């Protein structure tokens, strides 16, 4: 294997790591609410704009990141309060289409506010400089992304496995009604899931702006659609399979993007989603699930 393919593989793993974090953010909320948050990408977009505005105002990097976290978490909580909560008892399809509307609402508000050309978030651009490891040049952000994603997932595993609120969240994901009947407080569990999911969106916003400093209203929209497809391919039923699905689709997307010649890489979305459909044809329940998974259960 030549060095270029090693490079492609590492870059693909970096993208996979970021997509895995997005998949966890979407999967956590799905677990407790049975709600697929299509507007997750717009939370990331809002965080990216916060970083760009902070950079424009000349704030130090840490203040920009703090603002990013503040904005994204505040928006997540508002979204939970205004949209998720009244819709909690509705069918999953109703909630999905509602978050689709919210996504477009946030996107078009950003378009009105910041204009079509968007802004540039430069504060962390130094992370783009390459680090030579052996014969391979790897951008620092790729390593940062992989390490951060690994640490976040580790923290999450500990949180879900070792704390009371984690136990409650797992119980709620398994059977919300029974969990409530046994004394799990619904609002607290949901708020916790939304908070963690928002924090993950902020982390993703920081890492995506390093790779792609031009922030406009469409920021992270495509990524969200790809991650959602990855979550379905992995298997929506369990957080771990959804996360693997997110990583897998990010990895494949990054790998194909790096490996294909330019004349073919314009067809990358078709190839990627074509692959998704083929995988679903073979394993409708999800790649990383046992048994029937997300096939219609009655």
């Amino acid at each position, binding site marked *: 294997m030549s060095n270029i393919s090693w490079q492609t593989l590492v870059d693909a793993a970096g993208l996979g790591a970021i997509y895995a974090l997005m998949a966890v953010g979407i999967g956590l909320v799905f677990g407790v609410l049975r709600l697929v948050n299509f507007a997750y990408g717009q939370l990331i977009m809002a965080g990216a704009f916060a970083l760009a505005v902070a950079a424009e105002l000349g704030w130090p990097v840490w203040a920009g990141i703090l603002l990013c976290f503040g904005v994204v978490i505040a928006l997540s909580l508002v979204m939970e309060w205004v949209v998720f909560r009244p819709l909690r008892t509705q069918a999953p399809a109703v909630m999905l*289409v509602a978050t689709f509307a919210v996504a477009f609402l946030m996107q078009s508000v950003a378009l009105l506010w910041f204009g079509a050309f968007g802004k540039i978030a430069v504060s962390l651009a130094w992370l783009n400089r390459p680090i030579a490891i052996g014969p391979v040049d790897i951008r620092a952000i790729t390593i940062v992304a992989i390490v951060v994603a690994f640490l976040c997932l580790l923290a999450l595993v500990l949180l879900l496995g070792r704390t009371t609120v984690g136990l409650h969240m797992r119980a709620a994901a398994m059977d919300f009604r029974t969990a409530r009947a046994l004394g799990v407080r619904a609002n607290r569990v949901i708020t916790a899931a939304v908070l963690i999911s928002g924090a993950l969106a902020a982390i993703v916003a920081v890492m995506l702006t390093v790779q792609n400093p031009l922030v406009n209203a469409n920021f992270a929209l495509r990524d969200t659609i790809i991650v959602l497809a990855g979550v379905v391919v992995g298997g929506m039923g369990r957080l771990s399979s959804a996360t693997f699905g997110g990583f897998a689709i990010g990895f494949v997307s990054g790998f194909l993007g790096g490996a294909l010649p330019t004349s073919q890489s314009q067809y990358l979305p078709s190839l990627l989603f074509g692959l998704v459909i083929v995988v679903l044809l073979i394993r409708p329940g999800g790649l990383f699930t046992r048994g029937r998974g997300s096939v219609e259960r009655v």
Partner: protein
Amino acid sequence: MTGRAIWQLFGPVFLVALAAAIGMAVSSSIQIYVINALVAVAMVAAIYVFVGNSGVLSFGHISFVAVGAWTAGVLTVPAEERSAIMPNLFTWLLHASVGNFSSLLVAAAVGGVFALIVGVPLMRLSGLAASIATFGVLEITYNLLYFYERIGPGSSAFSSVPETTDLLQATLGAFAVIGVAFMYQHSRFGQMLRATREDPAAAQAVGISIYWQRLFAFFLSGALAGFAGGLFIHLLPLTIQDMYLPLTLLTLAMLVVGGVSSLWGAVVGAFAVSGLDSFLAVAEGGIDVGGWHVGLPSGTRIVVVSAAMALVLILRPAGLCGGREFSLDRLRRIASRMRQRRG
């Protein structure tokens, strides 16, 4: 189909006829909005056939509209202009020409076949997973039609398509889609699919296959969407951008605002959101209010439409029509209640 059921068709047909009558009365600059609304009714009724009857959301139907539009467009651009507008077209497509009416039928056929092909894997998924996976179909279609210039104009506008979708064709097209949707809904298959929507377990217990019923509805709905796409491309020169996420949002908003689970709701929603959207489009261009020239910033349309959609879902999830079909009885009851109140 019972005699009573046919009266449910009265509401949608009346609204379309009313819109056509209004279209005849107004100036041609306003008429284009009426024609647009009628094409939107055709699209939304087509989407309703699958989404409304199955309860499974689809974000992919605009790709069937796009495929239908591309089909009808390529086949009706005058042959002598074709190589100038689409220089990279397949040779066999350079010479194949059909008339206006046939192009709509071919668009429906291609839309239906495309829906069938992608439906085979997607309909195996559970409702929610299927909904998300339909995004993939939209992405594939957008990506291919944008870059693959052997089957169309790629990223440039589809110019020189005969603009045959006038008020008459739009009205007849809307009638046709509503008619097919109504007949399907009251057919054996339609009733079976609606049973799976209401109670999947009970439906399966009486021997209904969720997979096959959903697949058939997806096919029929894809064909109708392709037909609507044909109407759309004969209306004005479009680019593939016009048949992507914003149109997906707009048509879903129409469906949801009216109420997903009835044909009456789909038609009412299509007219309501079209009206709102047209008004905002005019307002974005600037309107004169009492001597002042007021213009909304461009982009306001999507803000208002998506906010309206979210609000309806939060406050009245069953939509304006509450998921019920049009009924003369209810109209009569409401009228008598009002009379009592007055008396």
